[in-house]
């Protein structure tokens, strides 16, 4: 694989391969010295045009544990502020010798554009509302290891709850979960649903909560209030938040997931550290392993040898 830009573009075979590879990376991460020499001499550049702490740090850690060199490009202190175009910025960094770009941008499709301007591999770390494929991978990996579902997600009932419309996490997760065989249901007010979707939708969380294997809560972005897409955060919590009462109705084995950053008291109206099913911190830990898998697959596995020629 040359690039990792969306779950659909990668396809089921690559998704499974990356999840298998993540097992190896997780084993490395459990060692006292969690570092391997696999990507010595490779350079990875983080280019984040949007704020991020966990994704950027996760990629940085992943690259370092594989012994790659990592450069961090901070937009706020860069020549972008002097009016340099995206293309010139990318070409300038590429000229310094970069093997992979990790890109986050507020506009959908930017990772595809960038790969036209450079010979380096491109990893999508979030583009607009469109796609966030490494988040989907780490979510799949977390479900797979927590529920011991190595082969497939056949029959797993997963609800994604919240602002589906503006969420690249939701879009990538829907693709990845269904690709692996899960039954995905979306739970959201109508104003926060995309115009078209090919998975079932319900508007009452209470109707399905007693029969879920995974509940995936999305972050309720504060700015949706000003756009009057929801009447009030309080009302959102009452209908769609994970309250103590709802947490009790979840099946005992059910996982509680969240991509972070969390709005405590809004979508998460209960302390997740008190919920035995919460795997939110595992998601963060697993993020490093799956990003190591992606970096190794693109830069080290030799699986892109033919594509390079």
């Amino acid at each position: 694989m040359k690039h990792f830009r969306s779950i659909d573009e990668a396809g089921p075979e690559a998704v499974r391969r990356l999840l298998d590879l993540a097992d190896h990376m997780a084993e490395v991460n459990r060692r006292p010295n969690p570092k391997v020499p696999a990507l010595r001499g490779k350079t990875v550049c983080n280019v984040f045009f949007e704020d991020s702490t966990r994704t950027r740090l996760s990629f940085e850690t992943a690259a370092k544990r594989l012994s790659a060199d990592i450069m961090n490009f901070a937009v706020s202190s860069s020549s972008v502020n002097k009016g340099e175009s995206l293309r010139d910025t990318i070409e300038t960094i590429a000229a310094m010798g970069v093997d992979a770009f990790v890109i986050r941008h507020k506009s959908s499709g930017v990772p595809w554009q960038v790969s036209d301007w450079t010979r380096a591999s491109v990893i999508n770390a979030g583009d607009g509302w469109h796609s966030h494929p490494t988040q989907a991978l780490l979510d799949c990996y977390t479900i797979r290891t927590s529920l011991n579902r190595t082969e497939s997600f056949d029959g797993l009932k997963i609800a994604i709850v919240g602002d589906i419309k503006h969420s690249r996490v939701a879009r990538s997760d829907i693709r990845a979960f269904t690709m692996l065989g899960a039954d995905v249901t979306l739970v959201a007010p109508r104003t926060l649903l995309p115009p078209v979707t090919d998975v079932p939708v319900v508007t009452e969380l209470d109707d399905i909560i007693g029969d879920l294997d995974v509940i995936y809560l999305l972050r309720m972005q504060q700015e949706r209030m000003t756009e009057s897409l929801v009447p009030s955060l309080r009302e959102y919590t009452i209908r769609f938040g994970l309250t103590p009462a709802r947490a009790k109705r979840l099946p005992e084995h059910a996982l509680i997931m969240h991509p972070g950053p969390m709005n405590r008291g809004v979508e998460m109206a209960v302390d997740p550290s008190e919920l035995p099913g919460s795997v939110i911190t595992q998601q963060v830990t697993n993020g490093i392993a799956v990003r190591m898998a992606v970096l190794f697959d693109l830069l080290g596995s030799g699986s892109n040898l033919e594509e390079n020629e």
Partner: protein
Amino acid sequence: MTDSKQVLGPDDVRRVITRMAHEIIERNHGLDGVALIGLQRGGVWLAESLGAEIARIDHEIPVGSIDASLYRDDIGLRPVSPGSVSEVNFEIDGAIVVLVDDVLFTGRTVKAALDAITDYGRPSAVQLAVLVDRGHRELPIRPDFVGKNLPTSKDEQVAATAGGVVIS
């Protein structure tokens, strides 16, 4: 079509494993601190067989496996598909680690495995046991325990399993 030739049969392999088990015990004056680590993928069955044989002769010792694909010196030059996840569930510090592989060829896999082992700890010694030594070393590596020395040409393929050793 390529001609394939069976060099050892299943019974021969069994006898060879018994002999190697005795040699490992003899060389180390017992089994104090000795552990076996099979190299993914081909060395794992052999490490398990050697472990079972050693347990039959004397007593049980730790057996692990290691996947050295993240340590290879040809990363990016050829397709890599890791085997199963490494399993080292015992203390490497101070252990006498016997690396086990099916076929010893260029020595590059063994070199990668040596690098991997040292990331788990500092063994007091590392020894190498292989079912088949087919020559053509590219690194200064030699085995301590050999099932069979097998002269080959570089382009021949050697398969070594519990079912026998076959050149093709």
